[in-house]
């Protein structure tokens, strides 16, 4: 596999349209790390706790997400020891990751709203005012 040039600044491609959003798992991971440095296992527990046990990820799939985010420069990691003194890798949000989390959260909200609207019976007045309101906000 020929080496890929690293994409240094995902932000350059500006707010992702809602329909192109990456899997919600990335967003959950970023959201878990916004509370501070944590290792992989801790990230899984945080997601569980913050969603009040409503969201359960298949925990093995956390790691490809962590590595992907690290390669994108949204999170950074350093080796260390866990609280029970086992080898562990600690992840933290980078400045870039923090901004991305903000953008993606907005995108996610738009996505959820768009889905919600699209499954309601159409009433032109409400749809127009809502989208108008959002646009003036940003």
């Amino acid at each position: 596999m020929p080496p890929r040039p690293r994409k240094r600044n995902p932000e350059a491609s500006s707010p992702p349209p809602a329909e192109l959003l990456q899997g919600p798992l990335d967003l959950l991971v970023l959201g878990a790390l916004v509370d501070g440095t944590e290792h992989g296992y801790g990230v899984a527990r945080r997601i569980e706790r913050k969603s009040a046990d409503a969201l359960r990820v298949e925990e093995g799939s956390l790691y490809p997400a962590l590595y992907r985010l690290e390669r994108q420069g949204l999170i950074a990691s350093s080796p260390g020891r866990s609280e029970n003194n086992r080898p562990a890798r600690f992840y933290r949000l980078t400045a870039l990751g923090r901004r991305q989390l903000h953008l993606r959260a907005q995108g996610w909200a738009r996505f959820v709203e768009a889905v919600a609207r699209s499954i309601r019976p159409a009433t032109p007045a409400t749809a127009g005012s809502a989208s108008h309101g959002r646009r003036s906000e940003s």
Partner: protein
Amino acid sequence: MAPRRFAAVDVALSWLVRVWERMSPAALEHRVDTELREHREHLRADLERAGHSRAAARRLAEERLGDLALHRSASLEALGVAARRDSRGGDSVMSDLATETRLVGRSLWRSPGYSAMVVATLALGVAANAAIFGLLDAVLLRPLPYHEPERLVRVWGTWGTDLSSNSNPLDIADWSARSRSLEGLFGISGGAVTHAGADRPEQVAAHAVSSSWLEVLGVSPALGRSFTADEGAPGRSQVVLLEYGFWSQELGGDPHAVGRTLLLNGTPHTVVGVLPGGFPHPLGWQSPSLWRPLAFDPAKTSRGGHFLHVVGRLAPEASLGAAQAELDAITADLARQYPDTNAQIGARLESLRDGVVGDAQRTLWVLLVAVGLLLLVAALDVGALSLARQLERRHETAVRAALGASRWVLGRGVVLEGLLLGAAGGIVGLGLAGGAAAPVLRLGAQRLPWSEQARFDLRVGLFTVALALLAGLLLSLPAALRLVSPALRDFGARGRVRGASRLDARGALVVAQVALSLVLLSVATLVGQSLRDLLATDPGFLARDELTAQVTLPRIDYDTDSRLAFFQRLEERLEASAAIESVGLVNRLPLGGGHSCDSFTIAELPAPAPGQEECAEERVVTPGYFDALGLALLRGRVLEPSDRLDAVPVVVINEAMARRYWPDASPVGARFRWGGAQSTDPWREVVGVVGDVRHFGLTQEAQPEVYLPHAQVTYPSSFHAVLRSDDPGAALTILRAAVAELDPRLPIADVRTMRERIAGSVETERLRSGLLSVFSVAALLLTLLGLWGVVAFAAARRRREIGLRVALGARRAALLALMARQGMQLVLAGLALGLLGALAARRLVSGLLLGTETTDPASLAGACLLLVAAAAAAVLLPSLRALRVQPAVALRED
């Protein structure tokens, strides 16, 4: 949270780990496996704690983790690595590295020309560094083999404005008795004795020391004992300690040497002990063969004579500052107690190392920096070679990249290659330094204090190896960085890389080399210029091949009258020889060192206040001395054979003395005598003034000197004969024969021509200048090599173009100019950069140089010209060769 450690260490460690992981797929696999495994364990432990059975916990954990194999391969893909079938993590990192090292080693083995070139270049640079570091280590860094050497101090006497003078034995005894921050003090004075050796008498160095000296130094003799306190009393001091080398050579290393008797100056002396091997002289002088107790009778010794060098030891808790303050108070007390002699006497403390090594420190650091720059130039040279090698291997690299080697892995290979070459260069360089460079250097550096302590040991070895690895890393960096940079894709995409950018990188290396070489060259020319200036200083005598040699009469066999008779007869015999043009005798030779300053009175001038007397140097000479050494007569006459004991006492003074005491009048006719107002010395008439002689060194201004005729003084027991002749060898034979005829037991010592004495007096300057020249020429050659390579490469790349142009009728001169321009641009860029560095470097070394303008534009211009001329040759020759190509041949290629 991770337990808090030192933040900096943490950051550095994790950075290293990250760099390593980038370069090693095995490390990444290890990381993934570890994280998944730890996750499962953590989960299982938590589940067990929540009340599940062990088996249930394991099953639940597996379930919640999901398909591990799938997640693992997805993880690796996310990390940019293709999963390998076999991966057990852990030691695979190391085996990976070992395999790669073997591969790199094999590939180097297959290109022996390249490897040999790189190893040889690095080895030369590393060997020079090791040798200089070894010397610097011995002189400046390595603790001296005394007990707690950091507590030893050099005690200088001060006398008015003279801050580095010698001291009086009674003063030393008082300092030692009254000071509490100084644990002990001892004095040393140089000297020599006649030793009745096995076949012929010889003069051997014998230094006199206070009896407590070995206790102060904290050294025990290898055999026997040190001196006892009562051996410092006159009449009891016929005992000696032997230097290790003298013991093993003259006494055959006799284990029962203690108690044996040596005949010294005709008197039997008892051996009381042997010093350990490698015992350094406390003052950094050449170790004498013998050490004698310093004998003096307190009742009969005056406080006026200052002839001892003093070393002391600070008490365990005392600081240098506190000891200095205490000593200041003591010398002030002594000045009140003995106003006649001690009014101007003080003492100054320095750490022993600072006091002894003095200015040589800077010389050594300058040399180390210079030799470091040389290694840098060498590393840049091989860096350029390594870039060229990577270019040659571009197809192989492209194939490896296409097969999935990441650019980090490719870069790692290059770094490994550099480290391997560095290690090889280090090993060869170590051998080179230990076998050749260090011994040669030590020979040249004998004037540097403690240079004989230089040893080629683990310390120097580690320094060398570390340096070599660093050089290896440095040399691989340019090539590795280019591989790692994203532009590498060009390899795969086109198969044939653009040469231009690669040439730029090599060009940058050449620019750096030119700049560094100019810095070295300019410093070397400056230091060389200062040496030439120094040697061009008029020493005050005609420095030709006059042979000089010392003849010493044992006091026990010769009284004053018979000494006079001996030397008169010796001079007559030498004068009678046709091969010798003129003969003179003197008690102290110029550049021979040693003060003999005494106070004096001039009848016509007001007497100085007590304690404010000035002193003049005494020279006892035969009348022939002025002619033999070629001193200039400025006024009056020189001494004549008629200036005998029964004639009017006379003296001749030097210009410095005349200028100081008779600035406006002629001193001829004035009356002079040694000592103060109560002196019993007879008045002596000043009959002439001769030119100044640089007695204390070429850089030292002349002091007031008084020449006395040998027949009118208490006769010295030792004279230096000065023989002017065309053939110094023949003169020595004549001298030996003449002395043997008069007394076959007498040795002839210190045989050298005046020219050699001048050379010897600037030995340190010569060493400095010589080494800097060698380093800068080596750097220049390496730079030319690099330049040649770049130009030849550029020319080879343009073969087709040149062939085409020639075929179309381009003039060769125009083509040559076109090709030379590129090379010379690099040279000029390097020159501009180097000029800045050179100006800064010259300012830095200016402190080393006396009397030479550091901004001396001539020597800087000289360095630039030399560099440009040599560089022009390195640019033109390969260009010319490229132009000789047959157009048809070049066009048909490829």
